[in-house]
């Protein structure tokens, strides 16, 4: 299975995350899965004229593309011309190249939240009219339109995340290479369910603080970041605290909030990223699938039941009290 990777209105961070794959050399990992790089702007040998000719051949259908990966938002501006990104070496806007190759490719993969929904590049006034391949925020549409299906009938596969975990990218490509990715393996937003059917909350090391609503008051505190510091981990679809990052990391393990970067529209949360919006002292944005009345009742109960150990440790940057040691009866 060959792979053509193009970048547009993003930062290249999805590729850099991918290169941090921790299963030996990524290049060998891809070869083992039967994925052959046709071209990737950051790592391939060929450039300038040769690369341009190759991409023109892909657009013309003279070179077959099995998987087209797009990293970065699609920049439609100014005024629909696509002029904010003309692919190097000529006048044609990148959105035109993407349109031409996408209809010919066997599969189309959006790598990262920019090419999935628009992402950070679409924040604020969205100066470049950035969108995703098949979504514009939560709305279907995007560059390719809501009805786009690849040659096997799949929609665009959204490996969302800012950036995505390296394994999300590789495992998606491997599933495609092995013919094991079908429509039922994608969630409602076209994300592979193998990572999107989890919540960031699952496996969070701050779980005990969450249970007792023992909350961090400021950055570097050990407590739960949901009540005050903007954490959206109970609503964000990803397995970040089960499949760790760069060895033993994750946003929560790094001490800062989950900003729900796998979700469409995460770039405009409607409040400060690292502060939790509240109504009458109660955080808006409850955990997924949790009835509000029960959440409030349980939160009140658990707060009043918080052990002193958990309460004191929550607002410290190191353990003040260790769990007590129990001895068996003699």
């Amino acid at each position, binding site marked *: 299975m060959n792979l053509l990777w193009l*970048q547009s209105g*993003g930062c*290249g961070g999805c590729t850099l995350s991918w290169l941090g794959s921790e299963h030996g050399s990524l290049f060998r990992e891809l070869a083992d899965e039967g994925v052959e790089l046709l071209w990737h702007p950051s*790592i*391939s040998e060929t450039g300038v004229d040769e690369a341009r000719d190759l991409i023109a051949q892909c657009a013309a259908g003279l070179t077959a593309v099995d998987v087209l990966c797009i990293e970065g938002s699609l920049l439609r501006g100014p005024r629909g011309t696509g002029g904010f*990104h003309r692919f190097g070496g000529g006048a044609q806007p990148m959105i035109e190249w993407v349109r031409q190759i996408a209809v010919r490719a066997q599969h189309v993969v959006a790598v990262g939240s920019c090419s999935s929904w628009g992402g950070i590049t679409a924040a604020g006034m969205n100066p470049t009219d950035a969108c995703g391949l098949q979504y514009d925020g939560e709305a279907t549409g995007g560059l390719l339109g809501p009805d786009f299906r690849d040659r096997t009938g799949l929609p665009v596969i959204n490996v969302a995340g800012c950036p995505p975990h390296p394994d999300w990218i590789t495992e998606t490509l491997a599933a495609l290479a092995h013919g094991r990715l079908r429509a039922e393996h994608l969630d409602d937003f076209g994300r592979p369910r193998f990572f999107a059917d989890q919540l960031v909350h699952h496996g969070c090391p701050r779980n005990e603080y969450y249970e007792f609503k023992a909350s961090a008051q400021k950055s*570097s505190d050990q407590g739960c970041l949901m009540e005050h510091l903007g954490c959206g981990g109970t609503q964000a679809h990803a397995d970040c605290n089960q499949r760790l990052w760069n060895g033993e990391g994750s946003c929560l393990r790094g001490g*800062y909030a989950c900003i729900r970067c796998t979700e469409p529209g995460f770039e405009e949360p409607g409040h400060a990223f690292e502060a939790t919006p509240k109504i009458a002292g109660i955080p808006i944005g409850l955990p997924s699938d949790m009835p509000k009345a029960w959440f409030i009742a349980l939160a009140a109960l658990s707060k009043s039941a918080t052990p002193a150990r958990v309460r004191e440790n929550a607002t410290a940057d190191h353990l003040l009290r260790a769990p007590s040691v129990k001895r068996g009866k003699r």
Partner: protein
Amino acid sequence: MSTRRIVGPFNRVEGDLEITLDIADGRIAAAYVNSPMYRGFEQLLQGKLPADALVLVPRICGICSVAQSAASALALADAAGIEPPHNGRLAANLTLATENLADHLTHFYLFFMPDFARADYAGRAWHAATVERFRATLGSAPNQVLPARARFMQMMGLLAGKWPHTLAVQPGGSTRPLQSSEVFRLHRILREFREFLESVTFGAKLEEIAMIASRVQLEAWRAKSGGGDLRAFLAIAEDLDLWHLGRGTDRFMSYGCYREEDGRLFPAGLWQGTAATLDISSIREDITHAWYAAAGLPQHPAEGSTLPVAEKDGAYSWCKAPRLSGQVVETGALARQVVAGHPLARDMIEGYGASVAARVAARLLEVALVLPVMERWLTELMPGDPWCIAAKTADETSGVGLIEAARGSLGHWITVRRGRIHNYQIVAPTTWNFSPRDSDGQPGALEQALAGLPASATDPLPAAIHHVVRSFDPCMVCTVH
């Protein structure tokens, strides 16, 4: 009579790059460097809460992500008038140094060296070995480096949660308090990385590399046995005379980086044959040849504006043209070490000036200089002491954050009005190095470095042009943001 040729996309640079060449008599008469993509970060930051910049600006760039965080955190700390505690300062140093060293490694192995494995050089004595070692994606080096780099980046898992795009770097310090056993784990990662560098990259102790004080000593060191990829590069550099290729401007700038208790490990400064004081207030961004609406004379970034226009006479890039006292400067690891006064760095630019070989050697020299300092910083961490203090930004304030990314000087200028970001201007390393011409017609550093090189209107682009372009370790997504 010259012929015009447009070349692009340049690959193995971070982001998009196109260069227009005017070719006459078999040489480049003039080069015009175009950064062909615009995203509008400075526009989308306007009206945001100041602290939200910490989420947005790292996402300018996937390879200088922490450098962007660090510059933003410094600007916000400056605006709030705070200083992080001891541990917070060290954690910021370690996080930035990890990214910078990883970037140097990525540049050398994945972006720069594969060009010597190309068929252009078939027939050179070193070509077969270079193909085996450095060929893009297939060579033994990239396949050996990726796992070593991934292991080194586990520093980020512990220090910053993840890379790229962390929120651990805050104006008041680090969100990630480290306990003693975690500091131990960081030591272990550095030890493994040191072993990799000493056995694979250098074939020598880091301290031995750091002591090399001149090109003569470097040559003598190369002639010794010991192997390592630096020796392989130096042999190629001798054969192809990369010491006399790609001279840009002879002015080198560094904002300085890595905060120590007193000053910065590598100090700020300017070098133009002799050391000079760096006057930040003399920076101006010229937009004569960039697709932005003019707002009068070139502006200091604190007062800068970013108003993209679709069409403009004489414009050929989305990159602005920053100038220091009206002059072009080069920035990067070479400039940083020249300014800091490392004798090898100074000696490498004696005579010819900056070159492809000097830029690449300076990067590897810096790896050897910084890793031992990282080891020291780890020993200076004090688990149990504070890591972060709260930052409260006033409703009316401003701040500046100046830092060194792997590829050079990065500056953020923020103005806050009524509690919101009124203006946020960013001048990135490659904005300096790959700038277009200014109102005086002065070409940017790369434009100067390419002028005069052999080229043809129709033949494949000579490899030398690739070497010169990549010797700057360009980051195009930072250049225009």
